[in-house]
């Protein structure tokens, strides 16, 4: 096929980027999330005079930063069509290890390293089962979820470990500095979000994740080391769960067998609301970050006006369904029109 014939050349011209149009920008998921975030802030500010207060808002981030950090790694897993439901159980196990080490008199840096290491090991265990044995990740992580939390339950029974050094507790409860009273955990989340965003959207590694998620077989034939990448994503997820365990344990200063119970479903909600397709292959870190803020500020605002947590979870469930359902409905409607 020669390109000397201009007509033919034109016929095979491929536009690699759709033209920038206002409608496309407005229909972007991130734009919708920004509008949602603005709505949440405006409504909450009207409902309570204490909402728009720098110190209150800053402290509110304590409550969702651990889940937000988990959501970043979960987004990558869901993009490659995997999922990890064992993250909350990994937190329990890592917290247990730190609690036992702390009772034995381990210093703070050792506790942190131990928490991260337990997370990495658990993640590697998941990753090995999923890739080496070629098992569906949802089933594997339901199994390891029972196993990891089961270990914590067997060791702890109905006891709690509460002896932690003060310097350890300062990590999860502390602020960046006196002049800037922003929780360390939130700053950590923002920094990680930046790193994840750059890696996912500006490097070949990120492109490979999308390739795997869009079509794993095609990705494999294109030379993407699919199982290698999936394994390390599970390890990364484990590492983030270990980090979340450090932050959570030091924030609440205790380890109970039911620590972080139910986090996995909240984190999946954050990721899906952030526009990551549960079928894999699409999504972005900006969306996830916005979704984290929408969910976190909704929870904070409603608890300011004394709405019980369980009622807030109704709203979060409805928000998840409506935010995924409404665009699907609109698309279906538009297709019907065309």
């Amino acid at each position, binding site marked *: 096929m020669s390109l000397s014939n201009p007509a033919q050349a034109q016929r095979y011209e491929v536009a690699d980027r759709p033209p920038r149009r206002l409608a496309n920008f407005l229909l972007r998921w991130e734009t919708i999330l920004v509008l949602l975030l603005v709505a949440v802030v405006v409504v909450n500010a009207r409902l309570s005079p204490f909402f728009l207060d720098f110190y209150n808002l800053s402290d509110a981030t304590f409550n969702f930063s651990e889940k937000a950090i988990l959501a970043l790694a979960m987004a990558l897993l869901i993009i490659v069509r995997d999922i990890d439901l064992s993250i909350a159980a990994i937190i329990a196990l890592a917290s247990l290890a730190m609690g036992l080490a702390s009772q034995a008199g381990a210093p703070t840096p050792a506790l942190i390293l131990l928490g991260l290491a337990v997370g990495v090991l658990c993640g590697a265990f998941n990753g090995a089962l999923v890739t080496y*044995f070629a098992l569906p990740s949802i*089933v594997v992580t339901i199994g390891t979820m*029972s196993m990891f939390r089961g270990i914590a339950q067997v060791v702890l029974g109905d006891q709690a470990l509460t002896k932690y050094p003060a310097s350890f507790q300062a990590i999860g409860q502390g602020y960046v500095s006196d002049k800037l009273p922003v929780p360390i955990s939130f700053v950590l989340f923002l920094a990680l979000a930046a790193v994840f965003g750059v890696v996912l959207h500006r490097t070949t590694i990120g492109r490979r994740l999308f390739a795997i998620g869009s079509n794993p077989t095609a990705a494999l034939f294109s030379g993407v080391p699919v199982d290698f990448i999936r394994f390390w994503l599970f390890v990364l997820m484990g590492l983030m769960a270990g980090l979340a365990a450090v932050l959570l344990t030091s924030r609440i200063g205790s380890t109970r067998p039911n620590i972080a119970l139910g986090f996995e479903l909240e984190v999946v909600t954050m990721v899906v609301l952030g526009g990551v397709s549960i079928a894999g292959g699409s999504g972005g870190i900006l969306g996830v970050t916005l979704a984290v803020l929408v969910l976190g500020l909704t929870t904070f605002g409603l608890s300011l006006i004394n709405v019980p947590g369980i009622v807030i979870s109704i709203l979060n469930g409805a928000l998840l369904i409506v935010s995924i359902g409404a665009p699907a409905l609109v698309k279906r409607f538009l297709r019907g029109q065309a």
Partner: protein
Amino acid sequence: VNALPILRHRDGALALIVLGLILAIGLRAPVFVTPASLVGVLTDTSFLFMLTLAQMAVILTRGIDLSVAANLALVGMITALVSRAHPDLPIPAIIALAAALGALLGALNGALIAFIGIPPIVVTLGTLSIYRGAIFLIAGGAWLTSKDMNPAFLALPKLSILGVPILIVIAALVSLCFWALLGYSRIGRGLYAVGGNPAAARYCGIDLGAQQFFVHTLAGAISGLCGYLWVSRYGIAYTDIAQGYELTIIAACVIGGVSIAGGVGSVQGALLGAMFLGVVVNALPVINVSPFWQMLISGAVILAAVVVNARSEKRGGKLILRKARIFAGGGAQT
């Protein structure tokens, strides 16, 4: 290996494992294998039998229903409240109400999945929170105990027919219905077709949406029925009953050989999977193992079961690209 033919069949092997487990426990604690104790185990496991079958129907279509336990708890609370407000309501009416309410909640899932096109895992994750929260709202966060329920409401689970506890009878009837539905009805065979190959099923004229709507409604109805039975058996209703039970149910499916990728699963397999977990849960206190071990054991069993299932599902045939094959086996979720 030319062992007994029963071992080559997956369900036969699982049945032998369950039997061996019961015998092994019996050696440690003979009291466990007395008829009364075994009937007790079956009675306790009745809920798991029914809910596992319902979940299997959903998983066959490549779906998943995470909201079944929340549905059960919500319907249980509503029936308890209704019965308190109208003590003269006959029990059949309460059972019908429970099944209908459950079916309604399930149909809501089904409609969102089939007609709007939201993935099942997302919908049921959302309705899980909504249904749980609704319990808190309608009961005002209160606990209803057996003191708040009238004797007739509480009496049903204690009845027995010809010496067999009624919960076992109900579970057996439900199992029989599922056996007939999945094996011998057009819609049941359609579930396997949709899960086995959605594109081929579509060319055969099987409507995926209708199937999804049907299985979620069915799963809801069973959950609702179990909701009433659960609350009346244990004599208590509050926001957190059966919390996390959805994952036990899925675990029973996996142990029973139901493929999470859809299209594979049998009634006897699902029942055996549920039976396995039921035996483990009930045996631990008998052999003086702390109940805290239960989670760890069921986790290990789930992992062992998926590894075994994955091995047995491997079909003979020419491997063209090993890695591609490995990937084809895993990866995809929901």
